[in-house]
């Protein structure tokens, strides 16, 4: 609750910061302060300090699971803001507004990770989505950005419509929006419930860009200003996943056997499409878009398995994936040429950037010693321990191997190919931050115990 209130208020503060100050440094400072504050109050809440006494009427539900996720999301955003905050100025003039939107999105993130009724789920998802439509289109003069924004908007609101219909049908059948009430009962499927379930599944798949509802993702990620693609591909996606998992776990967990197969097929399709298509991309940005689809496939494992390993793993995955992706994007933003060739010879010009990027990519590929490995490990373990979906595990493993192909293309370009890497202005602070992030990735990979302890605290 702390985080929800503070993020909403700070969003307003950010809105006005642009009016009272034209100095971007001040604005960025305010935003960073806000993010730090968010992390702080969230940690306070994890330790039982509630700043606001609000009667929630059971609309929201806070446990350490979603609080921990919030911390990770805010932390990632903090890293993101330090790394790429300066690049927002290149997109447009209203930096304060971008930050305000990001804070509102974070409010949505906090809501959609802690919803306890479908109403809050809907609100959370929408509070996340609507500012994103805007962020996607912030590069007003750029047709690609416009187009991405329109596409995202149309697809997003379409899926919202589906979701609402699903919610309504569930409501019609169960008489409540409350997750506990919905999950009551024998778990039998009436036509109305199954239709609602399917619609919810579709719409959530839309939001997390799982195949076959992924088709907007590459275009949107590609068209959006890279700074915001980074944000979209990480924090938003993670939050949508948490919501997805909580919905299908808390509300429909009883019916798991009924929908497991469908979700498994969706997962397999996501993995295959994401990975195979990513192989054929020429632009790194687009490749990352497809790779995010592929990663979504892995996160779906948590849903397929629906056990504690999966839940823990999803949190771990979001952390690992977010940090690595933010890092790669932070480097990508600095580049002028987004093709693979653009990375040629980067290792010579910018050894630090190249090395850290390589570590991030290794993490995304799931090489042991990086956080990405532990994440994938958890997901595979969850699916294996579920026992019914070994075929999916094998598909996942093969896809992970495919993913190596395109992640390593970047590494190859950076290290093994000759080329005049582009001129970039990179401050030493930026480099230092990248190194810190790479260190986080590696430390999480080698000593995941820290995060695991937190995870174990509530499982």
């Amino acid at each position, binding site marked *: 609750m702390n985080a929800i209130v503070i993020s909403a208020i700070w969003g307003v503060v950010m809105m006005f910061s642009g009016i009272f100050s034209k100095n971007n440094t001040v604005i960025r400072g305010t935003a960073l302060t806000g993010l730090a504050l968010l992390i702080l109050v969230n940690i306070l809440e994890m330790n039982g300090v509630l700043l606001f006494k609000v009667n929630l009427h059971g609309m929201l539900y806070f446990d350490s699971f979603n609080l921990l996720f919030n911390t990770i999301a805010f932390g990632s955003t903090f890293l993101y803001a330090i790394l790429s905050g300066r690049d927002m100025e290149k997109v447009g003039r209203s930096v304060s507004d971008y930050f305000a939107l990001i804070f509102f999105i974070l409010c949505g993130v906090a809501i959609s990770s802690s919803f306890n009724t479908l109403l809050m789920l809907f609100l959370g998802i929408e509070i996340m989505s609507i500012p994103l439509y805007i962020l996607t289109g912030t590069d007003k003069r750029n047709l690609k950005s416009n187009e991405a924004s329109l596409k995202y908007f149309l697809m997003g609101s379409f899926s919202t419509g589906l979701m609402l219909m699903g919610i309504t049908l569930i409501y019609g059948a169960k008489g409540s929006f409350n997750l506990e009430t919905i999950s009551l009962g024998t778990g039998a499927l009436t036509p109305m419930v199954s239709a609602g379930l399917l619609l919810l599944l579709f719409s959530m798949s839309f939001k997390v860009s799982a195949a076959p509802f992924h088709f907007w993702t590459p275009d949107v990620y590609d068209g959006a200003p890279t700074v915001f693609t980074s944000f979209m591909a990480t924090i938003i996606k993670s939050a949508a996943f948490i919501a997805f998992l909580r919905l299908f776990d808390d509300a429909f967990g009883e019916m798991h056997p009924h929908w497991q197969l469908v979700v498994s097929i969706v997962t397999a399709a996501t993995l295959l499409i994401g990975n195979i298509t990513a192989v054929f991309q020429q632009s790194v940005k687009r490749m990352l878009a497809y790779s995010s689809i592929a990663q979504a496939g892995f996160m779906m494992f948590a849903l397929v398995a629906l056990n504690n390993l999966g839940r823990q793993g999803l949190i771990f995955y979001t952390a690992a994936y977010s940090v690595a992706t933010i890092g790669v994007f932070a480097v990508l933003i600095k580049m002028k040429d987004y093709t693979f060739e653009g990375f040629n010879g980067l290792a010579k010009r910018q050894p630090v950037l190249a090395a850290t990027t390589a570590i991030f990519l*290794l993490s995304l590929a799931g*090489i*042991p*010693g990086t956080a990405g*490995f532990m994440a994938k*490990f958890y997901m*595979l*373990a969850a699916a*294996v*321990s579920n026992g019914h979906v070994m075929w999916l*595990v*094998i598909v996942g*493993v*093969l896809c*992970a*191997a495919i993913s*190596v*192909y395109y992640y*390593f293309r970047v590494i*190859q370009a950076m*290290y*093994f*190919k000759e080329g005049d890497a582009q001129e970039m202005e990179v401050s030493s602070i930026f480099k230092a931050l990248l190194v810190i992030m790479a260190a986080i990735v590696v430390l999480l990979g080698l*000593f*995941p*115990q820290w995060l*695991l*302890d937190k995870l*174990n605290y509530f499982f």
Partner: protein
Amino acid sequence: MIPVLLIVIPLLSGLAAFFLKGEKGVKTWALLSTVITLAVSLLGLTVLNKAANLHTEVEWLPLLGSKFSVGLDGMGQVLCLLTAVAFPMIFVATWNSSYKNAHNFYAFMLLSQAGLMGVFLAYDALLFYFFWELALIPAYFLCSQWGGEKRIAVTFKFFIYTFIGSLLMLVGIIYLYLHTPDQSFALESFYKAVLTSKEQGWIFWLFFIAFAIKMPVFPFHTWQPDTYEQSPTAVTMVLSGVMVKMGLFGVLRWLAPVLPMATWLNGDTVALLCVIGMIYASLIAMQQDDLKRLIAYSSIAHMGLMCMAIFVTSDQGLQGVMIQMFNHGINIIGMWIVVELIERQMHTRKISELGGLAQKAPGLAIMLVVVALANVALPLTNAFIGEFLLFSGVFNSTVSKVGYVFAAAGGVTIILSAVYTLNMIQRVFFGNTNTLTGAMRDIKFNERFVLGVLVIVILVIGVYPRPFLELTQGSVDTILSRMIIKHPS
């Protein structure tokens, strides 16, 4: 203590090497580090050979039931020794080669040594997997940065192959982990895992594919000749001398004892694959004009033999495998060193373009002949001991009903191997010199030193293998006991 040192010394010195400047300094640094490692390894074998020194266990991921558990048993001793010996040899032998960005090159070399050590030492499946990949990644970077013209594509193929294999293995590990009684990754727990024979069956293949790709066994071998050909020779030495042993080692420690029933059931299938691979590789080797490819294919044949021996197993066979793993490493490194020396001077590896080198470089020729003869397992060389044990093991197999067939097929490959090896010696070293080979000079001191050491090792083991056999006997017994106890009566 010893195992930790074996891993940490190369690891830290490797990381440090990234930041060193100056080619000479880096070379010295790397050599120093590997020599220390060798020393530690030898100490472990002799003075400090006490149980307390050979095992270390530290909490790592208690939640997952994984520990940083490393230890040396007989088999590990042998392979660690091989690793420890191989690297200084390689560094000395390639002392005169110069590499672009030498500090990175040596750093990756040292890291891969750390990975290899870890693989041979790990007593925890997750840790094993970690090191398995840690050994792979530096090799990938080494090959694709300092290799031949087609290096990037070829190395990538190698990497993807291995990676697919290791991911499959990961699935297997996870499955086993979830079926251990105490949810742990420890080797001991893995032995206790309760599995039906069906489960064992397919987990077997998950593991086996990973190891088979590494060795490589017949249908999974296609990466190997290309990679050996394209890699810088120093890396090829690591790959073929040490890294392929990871596959065999994996089978011996993680596959056969853990999944005895499946191993028993699938033994013939695997052996058949090995036989096909051996004959096929030998036949291809005979056609090769490229020295590196020739040795590469011969390596496939030799590895196939060892793999076959594990699966149609007996006491002698396993004993043979253990010793042969070491021997093959030594021999093939020797072969590569010779190739490297030739290539560095002649700038070609084509057999057809060479000839008469013995006149110009007699020292090299003598060394090569010894190493090559060892490679074809002539008596009095080390490989003879190993292959003899292997063959007798296979021939007397209690597991396979057709062990003698396999043995016969293996025998054919020995003959073939003799044919192409001798043919190669004949064409490269004897006959008339041509314009190219006329300029050949004999080998320098450091190279002579390395080859000399290798030759000595070859001959010593060939004559007096007993210490080795005693060293590995314990491991053989352990493995066999696991396998036989779990065999259905």
